[in-house]
Each structure stands twice: as C-alpha cells, then as structure tokens.
C-alpha cells in the first residue's frame, strides 16, 4: 500500500530541489473513474498528488510530450531534471526510452511506485454507471471499494482490474532512483491466451473483424500521442513528403495507419495499454501490439523495456534467426 503522505513528502522534497523542473504524477480528476495526470512545478502543489486504483495513466508519456521550445538568444536551455512517478508498467517505458536515447538517465529522477493494480474505467462504468463526480477508489483485499456521488459501492478486483493488471508481471518498477513504498508480490503471468484465441480465426474472419474496428477510427491519433514510445519529431503517419498514409479516413487508410503504428511499436511496445484506454471509439488496439509482443518473444526471445543495456530489436540480428517462411 502506498502511503500518500509519504508520497507527497517525497514530492515536496524533490520539487524543492534547485535542479528539478517538474514532477509528473497523478492527481484527482474532476469527474469519473480515472485520475488526472499531474504535472507539478512547485513544492506547494505536492499535496495534489494521489496514488490509488484510479491512477491508470502512464506518467512516462508526459516526459516525451513536453515540447522543446526555441531558446531565446543569450539564454541557456532549461536542463533541470524531470521527476516522474512510475508504476511497474510505466517504468518499462522509462527503460525503453533510455534504450532509445530519448534523454539521459541523469536528466530524470524516477520515483518508483509499487502497484497492486488499477481500475478499468469501462468495466467500472458498466458495473456502476457513469458519473460526473470524481470517484474515489480504495483497494480492500480482493475488492475495490468505490465512493460514487457519495454512495459506497463494491466490486471484485478480478472483474474490475484493467486487463494489463490482470496479467501484470512487473508490479514493481524496474528502474528507479527511489521507491516510495515497499515492493509488492508479483501475481500475474502472461500466457497470451487471448492472442492464441484470436489466431484461430481464418484470414478473412480476421480481416472482417479489423475492418469493422478500423472503420470506427476517426484518426484522432490519441493512441499514438499517448504512447510513451511515440515521440518522433515527424511521424511517418502524418508526414507529407512522402505521404505514406493519407490523412483522409477510410478503411484502407485507417488500416494502413494501424498497421504502421503496430509495426513501429513491434519490439518497442512496453504494454502499458494506454493506446487502447484512450481510444474514443473502443478499438482493441492492444490486440495488435500483444500479437507483436508475443511473436517478438517467441521468435527472438526479446522483451523490450526491461533492460537499459539492451540493443533495439530491429537494430540487431542473430545469424540463427528463424526463417521458416523464406523461400
């Protein structure tokens, strides 16, 4: 269990430091089942921080989302550190960002938050209905206890946990300068049963499934923008010269977009599930990523976001790599 008081104290201390620019964590939202990402710049704001099962977002995404503004002549760029709170899953994003040289290790302060699972907004809404009030959620044993519009409701963790938490293998951060709570026991395992299940479909069935899903896509790019690994200055998807994908929306372009996204994340996706969470039209995006994750594991026994020293999957090779389909 994370003691929010300790968490805030730590945050105060860090934010008070000369060499710290901002701290990224979670705070109470103004409505609904999810917290709001918090980007704090002053120790006085530290008391806004929370950590509870509403803290689903991946703060690592906001490290790379911050724009590098032009520095006025005569001034020096702001090189102060960014402090970031990370759950186990979030920490893998930091690891992979370091593998990909997104920033130097010493430009970030990683505060690890051992996590016992967060709530899936959609599952909760199905069970308890929507609300425009911020919902409080506490974990009690194998139950989540909700306070919704003043009423107390209960639901079993098993039913309400986000999918990524159900199979979580990394509840404890893999990289951190400090842990704000004691490590927790690992409960999850990932057998990729869902991927196997999906694989049973015939190609036409699969295509039909995705055609229906992709036809919903409005190309808001929230799945790309929220991804902690998607921070290219110019994304091939929105690039004009050459234009790989049309900005126009139809099944062909949407499909191409989602293939490109999944492709660019293969061997890089750290399974934080944000892409699927943010989708306004409920496209099961992680179903694409998980397939890649699984194949990468199987074919190249490679797992991104666990080892800072690792070589990027597609920038290395093994002479004995599989090639069974190659003529």
């Amino acid at each position, binding site marked *: 269990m994370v003691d929010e008081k300790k968490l805030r104290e730590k945050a105060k201390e860090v934010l008070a430091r000369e060499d710290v620019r901002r701290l990224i964590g979670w705070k109470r939202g103004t409505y609904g089942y999810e917290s709001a990402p918090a980007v704090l710049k002053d120790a006085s704001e530290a008391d806004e921080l929370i950590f509870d099962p509403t803290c689903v977002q991946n703060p690592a995404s906001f490290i790379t989302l911050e724009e590098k503004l032009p520095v006025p002549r005569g001034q020096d760029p702001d090189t102060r550190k960014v402090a970031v709170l990370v759950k186990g899953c979030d920490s893998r994003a930091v690891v992979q960002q370091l593998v990909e040289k997104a920033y130097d290790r010493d430009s970030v302060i990683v505060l690890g938050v051992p996590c016992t699972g967060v709530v899936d907004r959609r599952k909760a809404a199905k069970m308890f209905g929507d609300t425009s009030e911020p919902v409080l959620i506490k974990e009690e044993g194998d139950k989540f206890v909700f306070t919704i519009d003043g009423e107390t409701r209960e639901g079993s963790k098993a039913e309400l946990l986000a999918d990524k938490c159900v199979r979580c293998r990394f509840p404890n951060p893999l990289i951190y300068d400090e842990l704000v709570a004691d490590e927790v026991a690992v409960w999850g395992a990932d057998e990729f049963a869902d991927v196997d299940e999906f694989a049973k479909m015939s190609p036409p069935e699969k*295509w039909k499934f995705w055609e229906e899903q992709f036809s919903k896509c409005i190309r808001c790019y929230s799945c790309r923008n929220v991804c902690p690994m998607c921070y290219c200055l110019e994304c091939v998807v929105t690039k004009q010269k050459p234009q790989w994908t049309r900005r126009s929306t139809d099944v062909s372009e949407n499909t191409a977009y989602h293939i490109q996204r999944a492709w660019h994340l293969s061997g890089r996706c750290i399974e934080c599930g944000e892409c699927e969470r943010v989708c306004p039209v409920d496209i099961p995006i992680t179903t694409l990523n998980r397939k890649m994750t699984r194949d990468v594991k199987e074919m190249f026994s490679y797992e991104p976001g666990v080892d800072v020293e690792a070589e990027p999957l597609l920038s290395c090779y093994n002479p004995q790599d599989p090639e069974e389909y*190659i003529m």
Partner: protein
Amino acid sequence: MSEEYEPNIVAFLCNWCSYAGADLAGTSRTHYLPNIKIIRVMCSGRVNPLFLVNALQQGADGVLISGCHPGDCHYLEGNFYARRRFMLMRKLLEHVGVDPGRVNMSWVSASEGAKFKEVIDETVAKAKEAGPMDQFRRRQLNW
C-alpha cells in the same frame, strides 16, 4: 474467384544477388509469369516493411522481398536485418487478416536464375489461391 483473375506481385530485389539472379533468368531465357513487377533496391536491408503494406494498399495481390543468401550479403548484414523485419511484418499482416501467402521472401543468389523462376511461380500460385486483394485497396484509386 473469377477465372481471369491474374494476381499482381510487387517484388523488391537486392541489386547484387536477386536482381542479378533475375537477370540471369533472362539471359538464360527462363520463362516465368509476367505477373511480377520488380523494384530494384541496393540491398534487401533497404526494404522498409511498410513498403509491403503500401504495395498491398496500392492493390498488389502479393509482395516479395528477395536478397542474398544469409552470410552472402554484399553489405555483410543487410539481409539479416531484412529477415527479422520480414518475419515480424508477415506475422503482423497475418494478424490483421492478410493471407500469409501474399507476403513472401526468398534468398536468390546471382547464380540462381532457375530458383528465381521457382520463387515467382510459387509466389504467383499462392496469390492466386488467396484471391484478389481488393479489400485493402486505396478507395480513392477507384476512378
């Protein structure tokens, strides 16, 4: 599917082995199907797997990457990278419902004109079997 359906294959051949192999097939007058259209690149490692996606989107019924045999790459390692990328992209396309028979790769050396023919025949046959790849075609192409 219709009898007259003739699959269209876009192939990316590396300059040093497979493209030369295709040339050899020519100089030795080895006949193969005209369904295949070749794009020359310097190395199979140049082939961005998204080229395959793009080709399918343009209406190709099948795609092929061909490079030097592992270890023979003119640039030492290019085909090793190409192999990894291909194996993954093939899985991804299969996952979204593209018949894996449409997505092919081969090792063809400069001396394997005969093998090149076999590769083409097989690639075309597989694409025939998979049928026309119309579901992915760019809609705005239809004019």
